[in-house]
């Protein structure tokens, strides 16, 4: 792949002596919506932590938007946005106040204006002046997403973004992600264990199992080979040791 926006090279992470991420190597092209599938404890969040420079890798490296995570972490941070799982923000502040703070930290030129634009983009203007502590789970997730895109990053990392959302919330999130990808050309890297969301949203997928990448391909190729969601689920289950156990049962 020429000029991938994310290039992961032999990335490894250990945690208390155990290998959480094992020699991960793959590329993601610009403009992709990449779905990172894996069972609980597979190493998906550890991978995101390394790519977002939150944790240094034990070995290997990655280059994101031309910046190396080890040698140029500041460059990486200017190019990425990140929504952790169950993001909460500052309960005592309003949505707008939260966003203004994060916009300033991201080095946005006119924070107030950008906050307004982002609230419009994510359709949160009517809730922006209420305390985040009073938000529902869905609203928190939207404001959580808003803080990640204030500076219009090249790459957006989402860790289990649909966790705890109702079907309406999931659909809204899906639509927003698609819009960010379409209108701003943002590359999306999304951790999830919901196969159905992968099928609807993603243009490429990777499957992680016990820290190892066991599958990586475009959704076109996957669909062409395996067909519908149910088949995709079968594929996923067949790739993971847990899945193999369930399949045998």
């Amino acid at each position: 792949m020429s000029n991938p926006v994310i290039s992961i090279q032999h990335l490894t992470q250990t945690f208390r002596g155990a290998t959480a991420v094992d020699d991960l190597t793959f590329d993601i092209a610009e403009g992709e919506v990449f779905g990172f599938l894996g069972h609980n404890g597979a190493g998906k969040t550890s991978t995101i932590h390394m790519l977002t420079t939150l944790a240094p890798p034990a070995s290997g490296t990655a280059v994101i938007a031309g910046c190396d995570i080890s040698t140029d972490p500041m460059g990486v941070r200017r190019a990425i946005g990140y929504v952790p799982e169950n993001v909460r923000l500052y309960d005592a502040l309003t949505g707008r106040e939260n966003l203004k703070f994060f916009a300033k930290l991201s080095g946005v030129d006119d924070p107030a204006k950008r906050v307004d634009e982002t609230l419009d983009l994510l359709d949160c203007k009517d809730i922006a002046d209420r305390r985040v502590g009073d938000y529902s789970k869905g609203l928190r997730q939207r404001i959580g997403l808003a803080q990640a895109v204030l500076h219009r990053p090249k790459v957006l990392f989402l860790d289990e973004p649909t966790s705890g959302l109702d079907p309406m919330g999931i659909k809204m999130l899906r639509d927003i992600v698609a819009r960010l990808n379409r209108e701003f050309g943002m590359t999306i890297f999304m951790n999830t264990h919901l196969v159905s969301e992968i099928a609807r949203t993603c243009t490429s997928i990777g499957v992680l199992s016990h820290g190892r990448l066991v599958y990586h391909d475009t959704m076109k190729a996957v669909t062409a080979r395996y067909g519908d969601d149910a088949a995709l689920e079968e594929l996923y289950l067949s790739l993971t040791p847990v899945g193999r156990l369930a399949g045998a049962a």
Partner: protein
Amino acid sequence: MSKVTTNPVFIVAGKDVSDAGRDRFILLVTLFLTVAAIVSLVTGAIALATDVATYDAAKATLLALGKPIDAIATPEFYPLRLLRGAIEQTEIIGAAIAILMGYRAAASERGRQTLALIMTRPVRRWQFLAGKALAGLLLLTGGLFVVLSLGAIALHLVSGVGLNTMDLLRIGIVWIVAVAYTTCFFLTAFILTLWMKRPPQALLAAFCLWLLLVLIAPQIGDTLDPDNQVAGGVFAQLHIAKPDQVEIMKGFATFETVRTGIEAASITKHFERFAFAVLGIKDTYAGVPLGAILWEKWGDALFILLASLGLGGILLVLPIRSDRLTKE
């Protein structure tokens, strides 16, 4: 935008200070310390008024009997001495409040995973930490300013004596050192809360340190002082004058070394010695010029300043572990 508004240190500090403005917690703890300090000041003044009344009554009796009044010692009145209780409350409660503030400064980020959101922005780790420390320093400076200002006003009202420029300068110097002293506890709690696995454990660890340094070490030193073991003082009981006391205590040099060594390990004792000297609370420094006191007590002030700078240095080199980004 100006360099101040774009610098992450000032952005982080500004946010914390403005949060404190709307958070009742800071207001409540400042109020608590102010109440503690003023209660000590007022009760001290009332007790002193009793002593003065006793002296006046004795003087009147002597005059009535036609006897000279130089038989009884005139009580010397140094208004700043009434701040003794306020200083002690700052030593103890002020340090506890600083711990709470340091804990909250770190726990609030961990509890909401906002630490992860900040550290994935182009903000260097040391900038974030410096911003937090700066906010703490500003809040402690402001809080102690309120406490000591109100204390000075109460002192003036209660004692009926005006404070001159030199008195205010002395209070100002004690204020600066008090800020450095409480900052040490703020930084300790902040570092522990950021570093330990669970924030409430860090709060308890910080309180244990507080207990040891602020209460127990000075208390052991105080308790080992033989003069405190007998009501009224052992030498007073034996009717032994001061010069002879010194002579007798020469035979207990090792004991005294151990005792003062334990006291010297406590940053609180250094602050107390400095503040008591500057404000003339300790008898031997009452009426002594400020310059001479600062020359003699610079070691105590330096101990506190170096401790706060050292802890600040530790904070800035502290790595933020990715497994500490959330509350657990």
